[in-house]
């Protein structure tokens, strides 16, 4: 019932409107499949005008396709639904199946924060507010997935935008984070200076290796 071939009417209408640019049916099927693929991998609701832009289709056609797709999923009785939320489309679990999803969530696939997640959380806590690019610069890896996890757990959130050019989203910790750590404010976090460098760094220094220049304080005056 959710065969994309049945969903193509809006596209065919579209073809009539532009007879000199006829679409082959399989190209049209690809459009529906592309909507499925894009919305599936999206980490937030996908606005229809973004879909329209990506697929080079009128927004109204995209909206029609999405509505039909949602109806087809429902009719076929899938365990997921395509819903319009927060100005975009996303897949979510069907409300009927909440008891199963609850059981799964309670089971907790990962009951502990990974080391990477803890480090990212620490950076946000100590340096907030900061952009994902600043987190990336410190950690040396793309922090998107970790930030998303932390956000989904309610420990960090987007707290504003950089006033400078680009207006990057800025991240900070949440009241829940403070509550869970038993702190009144981020000012109560232990001061950084109290901690000596880790063993790895000390070893490296002893071995006479050079450290990255930004920390190696005075430049050699050897000339």
């Amino acid at each position, binding site marked *: 019932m959710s065969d994309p071939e049945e969903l193509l009417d809006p596209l065919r209408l579209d073809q009539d409107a532009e007879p000199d640019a006829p679409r082959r049916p399989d190209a049209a099927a690809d459009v529906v499949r592309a909507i499925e693929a894009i919305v599936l991998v999206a*980490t937030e609701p996908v606005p229809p005008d973004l879909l329209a832009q990506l697929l080079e289709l009128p927004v109204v056609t995209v909206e029609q396709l999405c509505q039909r797709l949602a109806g087809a999923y429902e009719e076929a009785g899938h365990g997921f639904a395509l819903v319009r939320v927060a100005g975009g489309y996303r897949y979510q679990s069907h409300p009927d199946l909440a008891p199963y*999803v609850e059981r799964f969530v309670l089971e907790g696939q990962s009951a502990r924060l990974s080391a990477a997640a803890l480090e990212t959380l620490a950076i946000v806590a100590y340096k907030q507010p900061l952009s994902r690019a600043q987190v990336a610069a410190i950690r040396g890896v793309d922090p998107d997935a970790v930030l*998303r996890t932390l956000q989904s757990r309610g*420990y960090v959130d987007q707290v504003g935008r950089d006033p400078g050019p680009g207006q990057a989203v800025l991240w900070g910790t949440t009241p829940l984070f403070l509550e*869970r*750590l038993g702190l009144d404010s981020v000012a109560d976090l232990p001061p950084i200076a*109290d901690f000596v*460098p*880790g063993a790895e760094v000390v070893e490296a220094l002893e071995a006479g290796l*050079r450290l990255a220049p930004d920390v190696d304080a005075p430049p050699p005056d050897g000339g």
Partner: protein
Amino acid sequence: MAYEVSTEVFDGPFDLLLHLILREELDLYEISLARIVDAYLAEVERMEAFDLDLATEFLLIAATLVELKARRLLPDPDDVDLDDELVLWEERDLLLARLLECKTFKDAAGVLRRLSDRAARSFPRRLGPEEHFLALTPDLLEGITAADLCRAFVRATAPRPVPTVDLDHVAPIRLSVAEAVDELVDELPRAGRITFRRLTSGLVERLAVIVRFLALLELFKQGLVELEQADAFGDIEIRWTGGEAGSGDGRVPVGAAVDDYEG
């Protein structure tokens, strides 16, 4: 990070040797060892920091190659000490085994690349449960203290040691076998007879000694010198047989020919 730079061509002594033997389909007798060493030195120069470990690894292999090559150039196999011969065979077998292992994983890496390229065409869903389920999720901060967080911050922001060696005391090394050949072509006719030890007595760098030795082998192959070694590990006596200094056979053609010299 030096590796990142060098990977495009060779990322190790075995890699280089495999390349020279297989990809160019030259055998060790036809290519001059000079080319191997020069290719390596070119690599070293391209690296931002001279990597002592890498250089040592290469020199070990270069030494084995030099032995193999020298053995093949020896005019009379009866002169060879049987023990030395066995050691050399063992070294050769070891080198062969390592090259085969290196090649095995190189090919396996190619398959990983293809698998990964294919898998990269699909993107996983990572969105997670809808918001209203989040209240149910176990608290991931359970048992984590502010001090843990502080340590994680220090860990995350700690300077990462860069594995480079301080080289301020090491002069930049710029050697090529071709240049060494030119020097010898200039020097040997005047000396007439000279021992290898004396010829290299002024050199501090071991690499420079090896380069000179390779240059000497090159001249030997071209019939410009005769080499004599009274006993194993004894000093090598060199006799120039290529005519007078600055003569028509002289420096420019010999040195310049090294790179193209393929027998």
